[in-house]
C-alpha cells in the first residue's frame, strides 16, 4: 500500500468509499502528504539576521511577469491548478446558511461542467471553503462527501485583539465544529514592538489548540510596517509550528502583494533548507485576475519549486478570482471572450 494511500486511510477513514473524493481531500491537507512542521525552539539569531531590501524585491517582482509567460493549453492547465488551490471564501457580517451553502456548491463545481469536461478535469474542485466559526457546521454539511475541507478564520479575526484565552477557545470550538484548517491572526503589536518571544509563544499556543487541524498563520503583512518584519515574523511563526503562513485577512488596506509574497516564499525556502519541513503559503486579498494568479504560481514555481504548486502547500485566499478564471477558460476553449452571466455564481 502506498504511503499516500495509508495516509488517506488514517486521516479520512469515513471517506474511504469514494476514492476520488478522498484523493482530493488528502492532497489538499498538508500533513497528509508531508511530515507536519513540528516547529523549532525560538532561534532569534536566525530570525533577526533576515534582511529584506525593498527595492530589490520590487524589481524582482516587477520583472517576473515579463520573464514568464504561460500560453494556450498550458495557460488553461495553470488556471485549473489555480482553482484547485483556491480557498473559496466568504467572511461577511451578513453571511447566512443559505449564502454559505451556495458558496459550497460552487466549491464542489467551481466551473461549468461542460468546460471542465473539455479540459479533461471533470472532478476539479476548489482547495477549501473558508468561513467564520458560526458557518463551519453549515459548510461541513454542505461539503459532505466532496472531500473539500472547511477552513475557519479564528482568534478574534481580523484584529486578533480579544482576550487570549477566548482566542484559544475559539480555535478549540472551531476544530470541534469540524474545521480541518484554522486561519489564525497573529498579534501585530508583538511584531511592531519586537516582542518576538510573545509572538512565538502565542503562535505555539494556537498550534497546540489546533490539535490535528492544520494552522495557517495570518501575518497581516499590510500592518507590519516593513518587508523585513514580514520576513522575521514568517520565520518565527514557522519556528512556532505554523503549517501555512498567510499574508493577510483581506480586511487590511493592503493585502497580498508580490513583494510580500516573495519575502514569505524566501522565508519558507530558508526554513525548508534548514529543517527539511515544507510549510505552505497562502496569499489572501487583492488577487482577482487570472493573469495575477499565473504570476503568483510562476513566482512559487521559481522560488520554491513545483512541489509547492499543490493545494496542500499553496492556497489562494480569494473570492472574485474564480470568476475571472472561468471566463478565461471559456475563452481558451471558444476563442471568443466570455461574459459574467455565462458562469454560475457562488
Amino acid at each position, binding site marked *: 500500500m502506498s504511503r499516500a494511500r495509508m495516509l488517506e486511510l488514517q486521516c479520512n477513514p469515513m471517506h474511504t468509499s469514494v476514492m476520488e473524493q478522498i484523493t482530493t481531500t488528502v492532497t489538499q491537507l498538508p500533513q497528509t502528504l508531508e511530515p507536519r512542521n513540528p516547529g523549532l525552539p525560538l532561534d532569534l539569531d536566525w530570525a533577526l539576521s533576515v*534582511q*529584506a*531590501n*525593498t*527595492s*530589490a*524585491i*520590487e*524589481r*524582482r517582482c516587477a*520583472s517576473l511577469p*515579463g*520573464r*514568464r*509567460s*504561460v*500560453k*494556450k*493549453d*498550458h495557460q*488553461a*492547465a*495553470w488556471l*485549473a*491548478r489555480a482553482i*484547485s488551490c483556491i480557498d473559496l471564501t466568504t467572511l461577511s457580517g451578513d453571511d447566512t446558511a443559505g449564502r454559505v451553502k451556495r458558496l459550497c456548491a460552487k466549491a464542489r463545481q467551481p466551473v461549468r461542467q461542460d468546460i471542465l469536461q473539455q*479540459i*479533461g*478535469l471533470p472532478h476539479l474542485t476548489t482547495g477549501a471553503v473558508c468561513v467564520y466559526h458560526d458557518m463551519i457546521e453549515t459548510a461541513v454539511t454542505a461539503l459532505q462527501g466532496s472531500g473539500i475541507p472547511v477552513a475557519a478564520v479564528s482568534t478574534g479575526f481580523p484584529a486578533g485583539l480579544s482576550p487570549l484565552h477566548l482566542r484559544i477557545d475559539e480555535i478549540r470550538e472551531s476544530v470541534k465544529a469540524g474545521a480541518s484548517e484554522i486561519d489564525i491572526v497573529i498579534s501585530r503589536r508583538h511584531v511592531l514592538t519586537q516582542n518576538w518571544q510573545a509572538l512565538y509563544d502565542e503562535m505555539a499556543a494556537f498550534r497546540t489548540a489546533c490539535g490535528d487541524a492544520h494552522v495557517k498563520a495570518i501575518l497581516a503583512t499590510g500592518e507590519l510596517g*516593513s*518587508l*523585513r518584519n514580514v520576513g522575521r515574523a514568517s520565520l518565527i511563526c514557522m519556528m512556532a509550528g505554523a503549517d501555512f503562513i498567510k499574508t493577510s485577512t483581506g480586511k487590511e488596506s493592503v493585502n497580498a502583494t508580490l513583494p510580500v509574497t516573495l519575502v514569505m516564499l*524566501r522565508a519558507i525556502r530558508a526554513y525548508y533548507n534548514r529543517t527539511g519541513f515544507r510549510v505552505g503559503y497562502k496569499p489572501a486579498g487583492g488577487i482577482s485576475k487570472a493573469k495575477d494568479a499565473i504570476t503568483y*504560481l*510562476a513566482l512559487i*514555481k*521559481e522560488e520554491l519549486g*513545483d512541489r509547492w*504548486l499543490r493545494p496542500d502547500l499553496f492556497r489562494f485566499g480569494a473570492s472574485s478570482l474564480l470568476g475571472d478564471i472561468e471566463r478565461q477558460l471559456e475563452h481558451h476553449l471558444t476563442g471568443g471572450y466570455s461574459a459574467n452571466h455565462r458562469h454560475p455564481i457562488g
Partner: protein
Amino acid sequence: MPIETIFDTMEYGTAPEDRGIALQWIANHGGLIGPYVNGAFAPARDDLAIRNPATGEKLAGMTLCTKDEVTEAVQSARAAQPDWQKAGGPARARVLYALARLMQKHARLLAVTESLDNGKPIRESRDIDIPLAIRHFYHHAGHAQLMPSALSDRVALGVCGQIIPWNFPLLMLAWKIAPALAMGNTVVLKPAEYTPMTAMIFADICSQAGVPPGVVNIVTGDGSTGAALVDASVDKIAFTGSTSVGRQIQEATAGSGKSLTLELGGKSPYIVFDDADIDSAVEGLVDAIWFNQGQVCCAGSRLLIHEAIADDFHNRLKARMDKLRIGDPLDKSIDVGAIVDPIQLQQIQALVQANTAGQTYHAQTPVPEGCFYPPTLITGLHPADTLMQEEIFGPVLVSTTFRTPAEAVEIANNSKYGLAATLWTENINLALEIAPKLVAGVVWVNATNLFDAAAGFGGTRESGFGREGGWEGLQAYSKPRQPLPEPAQVTPFTGQGAAADDIDRTAKLFIGGKQARPDGGYSQAIFGPKGQLLGHAPIANRKDIRNAVQAQLACGWGKTTGHLQAQILYYLAENLAAQTSRFAERLDAMTGLTTGAEEVRAAVDVLFTYAAWADKFEGQAKSVPMRAVALAMREPVGAIAALCSDQHPLLGLVTPMAAALSTGNSITLCASAPFPLVATDFSHILEASDVPAGVVNILTGPQAELAPHLGAHMGLDTVWCLSGAELTQEVQARASSNIKRVWQGAAQDDHDSWLDAGTEIKTIWIPYGE
C-alpha cells in the same frame, strides 16, 4: 500534451513571439542591407551573411562598405552639418522627439528584430533595450531644446564617426546618435558586423521622422569598414567595444586632432557584504552576469563575497542558476538566449577550458544544441587567477572571498579596468563609505545594471573615457565656442658668460616634496634675451618622471576636503603675492618683456579662482525615472602630468596646477623648457605653503624628452598637453598603454573646462525604500 497532464507537471510550455513582421521588413528590403547615406539606402550587396545565432539561419545579406563608401558617407555628413547646426536647438529637438515617437510606434518590430539578430531574449529587448533607447531620444530632444540657453558657450564638434558593438545594437546606437544630433553634429555610424539589423530599421525611421538627408548616415561592414571610418575626415570618433580595438583606435587617431571617447571592456566587481539581503543579492547576479548572456561590458562578472557567508551564498546562487531557462530568444519565458556568434562561443569555451583553478559549476538546466552556453559559476578563485583578471564576455561568473571592507575594496580595485561596480549591504554607512572608493565610472548599491539617459555611463582606467548620458555626456559631443589657438613655440635664448648672482644658485627639480637633483646629473644653461646667463636648470629624465609619479600616487590629496584644498591654494596665493617683485624680475629677465608683475598678479588671481572652486565644483543628483538617487559625483581623475606652455612661464605653470589641485588631483608639471627658472623658484613657494609631499612635482628640461615617457607611464591617468600639437601627438601615440586621457587645454578663463578636465563623473545609483 493534454491539459490534465500539464495540470500535474505544471510546465511552462512555449510562448513564442511572432517573428513574421520582422522577417517581412527584411524581405521588403530585398533581403539585403547596406549603407544609408544622404537620407536614402544605397544599393546593397550580399558580401556577408547576417545570421540568427539561435538557429544559424541567414536573416539577410550585408554590404561590407568600402573605404570609398565610407568617404561618401562622411562627405554627406560634412555637407549636411552646417545647416543642421544652424537649424538651432529647438528645430533639432523636434526631430529627436519625432525619432523617439516613431521608435515607440515601431517598438515591437525593433525588439523582435534585435532578438533575431543578436540572440538576446525577447524579454530583454522588449522590456529593457528598446525602452531605454527610446528614452535616450526623448531625453536628448530636451537637451537640444535647452542647448541655446543652458549650453550657450558650446558648439558642435562637426562630423562624428561612431562605431558600436553587437551586444546592445539599438541602445548603443541611441547612446551615440541622440547626443550627437542634439548638439548639432552629423554622424556616420557603423553598427557591428554581427548585428546591423535594427540600425537599418532606425535608418528607415530617420526618413520618416524628417531627419534631413546627411545628418544620419550608416555604413555597414566589419573591422575594415570601422578602420576606414577612423581614418576618414571626421572630427570625432566615439567607440564602444573591446579594449584591444579601443587601443588601436587611440593609436590610429594620435595627432589627428580628432576628439575621442572610448567605452571599453570591464571586469566589474560585485561585492556582497555579510549584512546584505542575500536572496536579493543572488537575484541581482541574474541581472548582472546572466543578463544578455553575460555579453555586457559592465557585467558584474567578479563576485566578491564576505568569507563568512560564502558557502551559504554559493549554495543559494547555484539553486538559482538551476532555475534559469535557456533557449529560443523569441520565447517569452526564456532567461538566457543565444551567444551572438559561434566565434564568441568558442572564445568563452576556450577561456573556461583553459582555467584549472577553483571549482566550475554549470547550471543544471537544459541547454539547447547550437550557439548556447550554460550559466556558469567558478568559485574559489583568487586575484592571481587569469579568469579574475580577464574579461570573458559570456555567462560566466568568477568568485572569490574577502575578510574586511578594506580588503573588498583592495580586491575590487585590483584590475586594469574600471567600468562599473556593485555592492550589497543594508548598512548605509558601509555603502556610502565603499562606493566612492571603488575605481569605476558607475556604482550600483543594492542593484545592478541600472541605466538611464539622464545618468552618465562610462569608465575609468582601461575601460575608457568619456561619459554617455546626462549633461556630462554632452561634453563628448560639443566643444567651447571659442577655438583654442595653437600655443606659440618659443626658441630658447642662447648666449654665454657668467651668472650675475653673487653666490651661485642651484635650481633643482621638485619631487615628492623635496628639492631633487636630476637623476641623469645633467643641467642646461638658461640665457636671457640679451644672451646673459640666468642660471642652470636641471634636465629631468624618465626616472625623474617615475619618482614624481610614485610620489603622486602616495600623496592622498584626493582624499582631502575641498575646504583644505582651498586653504592651501589660498596660502600659495598669499606666499606668491608676497614675492611678486622677485617673480616679476625673474620673468622679465627670462622673457625680456616687462609684463612680469602683471603675470604674477594674474597667477595669484588664478590661485584665488581655483581656491574658490575647490569646494564648489559639485556633483548632481540625477532625475532618473525610478525610486532611486543617482548621484553624479565629481571625482578627481587621479595622477596628472602637464606639459606646460611657453607662453606665460608662470601662469602656464600655475593654471594647470591650481585647476588640478582644486579638483583633488596630484600633478607633475613639466615646466616651459625655455623659461624653467620661474618654475624652480616656484618650488620654494610650494615648500612654504604646506602643500603635502607629492601633490605637486616640478620637472624641467626639454619636454620632447619627457613627453613619450609621460604617454607610456601606466600610473598616470591623464596628460595635459598644453605646449602644442607636436608633443600632443608624442603623448597620444603612447597613451594607449593604459587608455590614458589626453587633453589639450582650454582658454585661461574657461574655468569649467579646466575643472572638467580634472574630474570624472562617477554615477552612484542608490535605490531606496523600506
